[in-house]
């Protein structure tokens, strides 16, 4: 649905976007992740035809953004970083204007407007002036604007910024629901958001792509061992002795002392070998019950930091 090839944008000497390529399939929700100033907004602005690229090809629905700007823009709904709202209009007037701008046929518009307003829950504020709405509602009206004309592709630049936690969850659920019949690119610097919503993640740093994969694969790929935290009731040295002799365990250390004879440990084991069953059996034989066993996956946060900080080291 969306094809980006060797996209570069330079501002003077600075390369805001440096030779990035990726594709987005129809119906996919792609997370676009990176620290502030990584080039997320620039890429999205190029994708939507707001600014031009220095070089590279961007195709949406098979059409080139440079050659067919008007055609491409018909397929895209865009929510920029700051929702582009006319403050002196009511929500109703504003959405009518957007529909006119995007040449939505008047017949369809009536029912479409009702659906959109219900979807983003702005029906009850439809007669209020946009400037009197709270930040959360302004964001929703911005999202409603992107949905006008039912475009196949939605490009959302940090859609949950500035919202309260309840609204964030609502918007995320909304995006997930929209993902069923839209292709979505969503940018964020908040990692749980991306792992909660997206099918695939592109991590971008300093204008370059650092990684592309599913959130799960990303956390798997970067670990060649499995990690657990295990809490056992029993004397520290004996428990350590038992666990460290299990086949597959590579490393262990005491994490914290919880009570007398109750410690939590961190265990790292070979990825291919499941050490949890022998661990349970042997500790049980010795009469040291396991109180807690939990596997520690590298969170997207860890991966993100790992990827972006190694880049920084290279740059130095």
């Amino acid at each position, binding site marked *: 649905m969306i094809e980006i090839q060797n996209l570069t944008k330079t501002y*003077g000497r600075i390369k805001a976007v440096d030779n990035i390529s990726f594709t987005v399939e129809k119906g996919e929700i792609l997370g676009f992740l990176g620290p502030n100033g990584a080039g997320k907004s620039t890429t999205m602005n190029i994708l939507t*035809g*707001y600014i031009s690229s220095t070089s590279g090809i961007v195709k949406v629905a098979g059409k080139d953004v440079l050659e067919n700007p008007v055609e491409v823009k*018909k397929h*895209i709904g865009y929510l*920029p970083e*700051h929702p*582009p709202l006319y403050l002196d209009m009511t929500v109703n007037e504003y959405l009518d204007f957007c529909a*006119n701008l995007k040449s939505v046929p008047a017949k369809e518009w009536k029912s479409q407007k009702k659906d959109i307003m219900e979807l983003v829950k702005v029906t009850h504020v439809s007669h209020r002036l946009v400037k009197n709405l709270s930040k959360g509602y302004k964001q929703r009206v911005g999202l409603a604007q992107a949905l006008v004309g039912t475009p196949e592709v939605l490009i959302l630049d940090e859609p949950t910024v500035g919202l309260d936690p309840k609204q964030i969850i609502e918007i995320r659920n909304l995006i997930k629901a929209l993902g069923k019949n839209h292709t979505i690119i969503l940018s964020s610097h908040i990692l749980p958001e991306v792992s909660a919503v997206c099918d695939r993640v592109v991590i971008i740093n300093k204008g370059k792509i650092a990684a592309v994969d599913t959130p799960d694969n990303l956390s798997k790929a970067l670990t060649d061992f499995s990690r657990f935290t295990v809490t056992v009731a029993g004397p520290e040295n004996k428990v350590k002795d038992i666990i460290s002799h299990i086949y597959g365990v590579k490393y262990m250390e005491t994490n914290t002392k919880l009570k007398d004879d109750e410690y939590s440990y961190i265990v790292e084991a070979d990825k291919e070998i499941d050490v949890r069953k022998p661990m349970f059996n042997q500790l049980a034989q010795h009469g040291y019950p396991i109180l807690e066993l939990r596997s520690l996956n590298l969170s997207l946060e860890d991966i993100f930091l790992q990827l972006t900080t190694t880049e920084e080291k290279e740059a130095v």
Partner: protein
Amino acid sequence: MLAIMKRDFRSYFNSPIAYVLIGLFMLLLGLFFNSMIGYGSDIMSQFVSTMRWLLLFIVPILTMRSMAEDKKNGTEVLLLTSPVRVTEIVLGKFLAAFSVFLVMTGVTLIFPLITIVAGKPDIALILSSYFGYILLGAIFISLGIFASSLTENQIIASIISLVSIFLIQNIGYLASFFSGFLNKAFLWLSVTDRYEDFSIGIIDLTSIIFMICYAAVFLILTVRIIERKRWSQG
């Protein structure tokens, strides 16, 4: 294009700006008209000339927000990522400001009506003066929109257009400082001289085309400015 025009036109009347401008314009014209009563019935072409001078202050205020406000509020993104061409955006903005100007012009028709009721003015002359005045307004408005596309600060936009409208109004006067080619060039560029023809009742097709092209040039420049910004590498 029509969507943008309608929105902008409504926005002028949703804010006090259109009412204040029309009120101020009418007040000044009323005072001037009052002072002219008794000087015969063919005062109207002189009256329209006064309206023309007032445009120097009216148009910059009318057009200052046109492009600058969209840039400042970020609504420019909405316009530029919608399936419309930049030309349509600029034209829509122009037509909105021009329509407000026409409303304003329409309100002033009360003065010639008074002269028609009270005396026997040359109606054809009044019409030709008004026609020239409207063409001149189109030029100034397109110039003001161009100025507004240069900055996101409305005050700066209005100052730029005030200065450039002043220059364009007086370009014929500048010509007298030069001789030869420059003199001719400045005279040729002088819209005021073209306007004078209309105010003495000469409706010349070349003048009409000239003035329409004059306005078009600034609108094309505005389109170029917006396009250039999108292509900028610096």
